[in-house]
């Protein structure tokens, strides 16, 4: 069995000198942060799995219905034309990441990133269950391919595959809904190759990532990890080692030594294979395993906890830990602005739509009875319940006739319809082109609708002359 590798700042622990992947086996750790991280992680997984099952307003709590181009979020339904709201979702997510990073570094990575959550709380637990602790796992890796090892590997990879399949199916259900997914699952995959292919691709990707790729993604691929140094400053609370207290490292009996007894526990438990005592590094995903490991040792030695702790570089250097600083004030202000605009945008989203479009063909018809325009009236009910539209046209001259506009129009949940509308203005009342204003009231909800369109015709002067 190869000896444990001592991390350094010049090379990646998880990549061998020949470029091959050095598979890390972090040791077991227990403690306050590990416990809370597990509770939080399992809660996140529960949310992920349950959202498609919880109905809100007739649809799953989150249902991105790609086939119908309707997107349901907790009872709110967005149509593809409302997709611009997604701007707030994306920029909001990005900005929140900036905000949290400025305050707490890679808190997201260690606690909430789906990659970490699935890896730490699902796949690593399976590995621990099948292969045992870190030493046993390392021994098994080095062992020759005996029947014992083959069985263990088959069981482990089989469980990985099973879990990957489940996660992939849950993911797909966000886009096709559970009943339809269940229907698909009972039919031949050939009937819906796209969905089946997506599911297979996801399963394969998950399996590859969590069975083999693991920390390589966080260290080398993830862009968020790469821009850390631009997002944090000396007041950002990261996980750090208190060198002033710990150095020089030495035995407990040594009176000249600091608090660090060089037990190497913090290195053994690290999932990305770094030594936190070398300072903040790109590889650190802020998982706090080293804090728990060190605190356990410090408790045994009757020394105060927190040799490794959540603290800012300034705090670790003996200064004050500051949360409120110009950057945070600015970020908070911008965040409040963004949330306010999002709120206004959501309030402005109408649950119904009425639009007047000119009928193709001649712009107007002229005969003895007057000037005629034809329109198409498009009505959309975005709600998940029937809605009653009451529509009137305003701005028409005296004596005009409107045909095709019923007094009330009832649309079923999510229904769209197009009506043909005919507006006739008698010659005597015609005074040239004008605007027609469509006003509408939709119940329930008392949503007001408005649209306008031009009534086209000859110039009134020419019409008079021809008379």
């Amino acid at each position: 069995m190869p000896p444990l590798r001592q991390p350094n700042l010049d090379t990646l622990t998880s990549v061998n000198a020949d470029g091959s992947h050095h598979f890390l086996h972090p040791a077991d750790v227990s403690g306050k942060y590990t416990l809370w991280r597990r509770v939080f992680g399992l809660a996140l997984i529960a949310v992920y799995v349950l959202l498609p099952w919880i109905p809100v307003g007739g649809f799953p709590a989150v249902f991105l219905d790609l086939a119908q181009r309707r997107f349901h979020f907790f009872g709110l339904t967005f149509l593809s034309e409302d997709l611009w709201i997604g701007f707030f979702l994306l920029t909001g997510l990005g900005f929140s990441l900036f905000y949290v990073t400025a305050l707490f570094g890679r808190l997201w990575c260690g606690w909430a990133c789906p990659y970490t959550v699935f890896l730490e709380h699902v796949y690593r637990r399976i590995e621990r269950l099948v292969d045992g602790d870190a030493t046993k796992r390392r021994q098994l890796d080095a062992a020759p391919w005996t029947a014992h090892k083959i069985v263990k590997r088959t069981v482990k990879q089989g469980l990985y595959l099973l879990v990957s399949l489940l996660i992939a199916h849950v993911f797909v259900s966000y886009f096709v809904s559970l009943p339809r997914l269940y229907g698909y699952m009972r039919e031949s995959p050939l009937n819906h190759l796209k969905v089946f292919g997506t599911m297979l691709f996801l399963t394969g990707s998950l399996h590859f990532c969590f069975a083999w790729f693991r920390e390589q993604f966080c260290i080398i691929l993830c862009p968020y990890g790469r821009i850390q140094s631009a997002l944090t400053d000396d007041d950002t609370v990261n996980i750090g080692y208190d060198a002033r207290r710990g150095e020089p490292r030495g035995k407990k009996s040594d009176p000249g030594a600091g608090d660090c007894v060089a037990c190497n526990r913090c290195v053994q438990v690290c999932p990305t294979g770094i030594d936190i005592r070398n300072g903040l590094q790109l590889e650190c995903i802020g998982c706090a395993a080293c804090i728990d490991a060190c605190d356990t040792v410090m408790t045994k030695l009757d020394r105060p906890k927190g040799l490794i702790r959540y603290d800012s570089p300034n705090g670790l250097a003996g200064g004050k830990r500051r949360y409120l600083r110009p950057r945070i004030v600015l970020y908070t202000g911008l965040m409040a602005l963004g949330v306010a605009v999002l709120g206004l945008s959501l309030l402005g989203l109408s649950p119904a739509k009425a639009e007047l479009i000119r009928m193709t063909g001649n712009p107007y018809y002229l005969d003895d009875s007057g000037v005629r325009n034809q329109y198409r009236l498009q009505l959309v009910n975005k709600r998940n319940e029937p809605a009653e539209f009451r529509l009137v046209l305003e701005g028409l001259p005296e004596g005009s006739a409107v045909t095709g506009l019923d007094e009330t129009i009832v649309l079923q949940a999510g229904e769209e319809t197009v009506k043909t509308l005919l507006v006739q203005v008698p010659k005597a009342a015609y005074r040239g082109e004008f605007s027609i204003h469509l006003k509408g009231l939709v119940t329930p909800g008392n949503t007001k609708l408005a649209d306008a369109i031009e009534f086209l015709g000859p110039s009134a002067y020419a019409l008079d002359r021809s008379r």
Partner: protein
Amino acid sequence: MKKQQPAEPEVAIREHVFDGIEEYDNKLPNWWLFTLYAAIVLFVGGWFVYYQTPFRIPDDEERIDREIAAIESKKKAELESMLASLSNESLQGMSADASHTAAGKAIFDAKCSACHGLDLSATMGGIQLPGLPLNDSEWKYGGAPLEIMKIVTDGSPDVTKGMVAWKAQLSPSEIAQVVAYILSQQPRT
């Protein structure tokens, strides 16, 4: 506890120095290099297959053209077989079949009623619509079922009129159903 060897990193540094900045000479991860080589192979292979062999993945334009051509030829075949089987008599027969006239009415109401009126009178609420009335036994371009079918399919012979060729939007069988519906609405003589 096993004693750890003090860290003795084998630091590989490239020879060049620019402005005091040195460069490590660590090997890239093999999987990373694999993605590079795979991209090169994919590029060369793709170039070879796309430009040097007859095997081509059609681009969007070709795909659309091909699909349109397929639809066109299918429509044409359907029209031909339809016309071969259709006659004035068979269309009259369809007009007595409620299933055909109901389908025809649905299409008529959606597509034709804007100009010809819901009741085929070319009026709506007493207002004259742009189309010609279809319920008055008067036919400007011939009232035989196949003649009506031709007008619906190819549009009015007078291009200044609004009647467009509906073959772009309706299949031959749908047109036949519309014609059957119109025939069913004719005044009985």
